[in-house]
């Protein structure tokens, strides 16, 4: 399959490792991967902060960049983020329509129908759960709110993780509780956000796992930031990094 990777703005700037892992994983599985140069952001931050009209340019750029999927340039688009795919699927067209651009809305809908979060792409489209990964660490998995409740990815990430060789999964307490990131919430309501991430970090530490994993770098940024501040030694890994890790190219835990 020819697959376009949408890195997302956050991963694209501060955590390329989630995108590079996605690329290496998909190539290892025999797919042709592209990373369209004009990509930037899905618009979620603006939309969720109440700047829907201001997000129109962002959405327009995203839809324009990935519209070639409709002409067969790629078979699918993947993003290593449940919340960005959630925004693409459930917000872009709606915002476009409410701001009077029906054409953009229609194209956005068509593009979003070909856009998948990583675990969805692997399990539903590519039909694999065992991706041949090797990850000899204890891991606890935070399922992330938007993967769970917006995309409803269910146990797909779990199926993928359970098939990884060498991994030991540790159950996270109150796993489905939000980590307190919430985009600009972490700044606008920083004290509440801090209280929430403190609880989440406590739960992570309680598992005794070496690594905390999630399918969204934004949540990981929040959780690992709190863990690092407390010098817990727990490291963060995106789901893609775990799945990309092999005996030949083991996980480094840092950007390449």
């Amino acid at each position, binding site marked *: 399959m020819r697959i376009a990777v949408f890195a997302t*703005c956050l*991963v*694209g*700037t*501060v*955590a*390329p*490792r989630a*995108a*590079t892992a996605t*690329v290496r994983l998909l190539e290892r599985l025999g797919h042709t991967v592209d*990373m369209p*140069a004009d*990509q*930037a952001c899905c*618009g979620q*931050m*603006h939309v*969720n*902060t*109440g*700047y829907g009209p*201001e*997000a129109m*340019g*962002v959405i*327009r*750029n995203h839809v324009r*960049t990935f519209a070639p999927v409709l002409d067969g340039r790629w078979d699918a688009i993947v993003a290593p983020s449940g919340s960005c795919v959630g925004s693409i699927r459930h*917000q872009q067209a709606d915002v476009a329509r409410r701001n009077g651009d029906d054409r953009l809305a229609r194209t956005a809908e068509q593009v979003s129908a070909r856009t998948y979060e990583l675990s969805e792409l692997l399990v539903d489209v590519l039909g694999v759960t065992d991706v041949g990964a090797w990850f000899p660490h204890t891991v606890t998995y935070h399922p992330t*709110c*938007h993967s769970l*409740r*917006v995309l409803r990815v269910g146990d797909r990430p779990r199926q993928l993780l359970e098939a990884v060789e060498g991994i030991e999964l540790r159950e996270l307490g109150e796993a*489905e*509780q*939000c980590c*307190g*990131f*919430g*985009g600009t*919430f*972490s*700044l*606008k*309501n*920083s*004290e*509440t*956000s801090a*209280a*929430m*991430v*403190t609880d989440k970090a406590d739960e992570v530490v309680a598992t005794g796992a070496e690594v905390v994993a999630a399918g969204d770098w934004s949540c990981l940024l*929040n959780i690992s*930031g*709190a863990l*690092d*501040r407390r010098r817990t030694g727990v490291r963060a890994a995106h789901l893609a990094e775990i799945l990309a890790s092999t005996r030949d190219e083991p996980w480094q835990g840092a*950007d390449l």
Partner: protein
Amino acid sequence: MSTFLGMPTVRPQPSRPPRDPLRWGASFPHAAHETLADGQLRANLRTATRTIRDKRRRVTAELDDWEQLRDAGAAIKASAMARLPDLLTQLEESVTARGGVVHWARDAAEANEVVTGIVREAGAREVVKVKSMATQEIGLNEALAEAGIDAIETDLAERIVQLAGDQPSHILVPAIHRNREEIREIFTHRMGDAPEGLSSEPRELAMAARAHLRARFLRAEVAISGANMAIAETGTVAVVESEGNGRMCLTLPRLLVTVMGIEKVLPTARDLEVFLQLLPRSSTGERMNPYTSMWTGVTPGDGPQEFHLVLLDNGRTRALADELGRQALHCIRCSACLNVCPVYEHTGGHAYGSVYPGPIGAILTPQLLGVGEPGGPAGAHDPTGSLPFASTLCGACFDACPVKIDIPAALVHLRERSLHPPGPHAPSATDVSMRVAARVLSSGRALRWAGRAVALVGRLTGGRAIRWLPWPGSLWTRVRDAPVLPVRSLAAWWARRSLR
């Protein structure tokens, strides 16, 4: 109010009584600063919300048609809203035909005036009250007090809140912010007839309230209630409760006044079969609440022989005008969204500065007050305007809502309304930075440059964690390290890989 030397006195929460029950205190972040610092409160809330939500999860899982009930509940509510004028006039006719009197009240002042008038006419100086959000919202007790009428809350938690001089902090358990020791303290000092040596055992406290209220029920001439629902076709009003204080109020006095938001009307008796399943399971996490009372107008020889129904607008029609936001009016006040909300669990109800706290409050209060409308509250720093921002959009509320109110979508929509009031206004610093960000995020080239800049900083910091950032980054680094930055940008990595 008396204070006793050597005894800790329980201070009212919030410390000053609000003038408007829908809008008091500071903006959400500032109010939360206070409540987050209260360790006792946070411990209470944590245990309490977790207890209820586990119970709710168990009893909703018991029904294999739970999702179908939710769908039906949502559809019945949406359909009722679409037919609201017809349903309200039909309700008026049915109630009138059965001997009741229907009043219409455009706002809080008008509702209070109507109720005060009825009580005065009846010559009563004391009324007993069933827990009711609508009467909280309009500040009825205070209005009655001004008219020299003593309104006695009879729900245990409401009585605690009333005696403490508090505002409720939860829709279902309004005194959730008080622990047993504080409640003992409140009863001992404020109840007037508390038994000697009252302990803080919940059973003893409940029995003290029973004894305290019994005499008042028996002598009450007038009762005031809210309504969980009213059936247009029959004129039937329903109140759902646990303690029996509702039955006392709805049965013993000779006159009953019910204040009901216009959104509580349901078309047919058959609709009860949906809501009497959705409400108790979502609310207290029980298969059925101990008591549900239904009455239709006046029944000769049984219960109050005079019945008044006050239909309340007070901003509801304003909410109705918002096509996306109007779903907040579908709310059946079960409070499931509060119990699953991680923000509520940490801040408690008082941070919301309204009698409607939690996720539903964050979309209901701003709409009742017309957020972003001409002259209405607006902006992320306003007590009401900040409410839609008091959420991470985690979606737990949407999943828990028995009538499927898409609270996250409504929050996002109201954020937009709050930030875009009509007419010209000077852009805030956030407005400006978001516009700049939008330019960068609309261009692959600009974002690649941003990536390169970040990688440059990454090389300069050499894989070290950044522990402090200047404002607004300091809001982040308060409890977190900033991420270790990459030393090579994604674009650079991709370019080299493509050369291979």
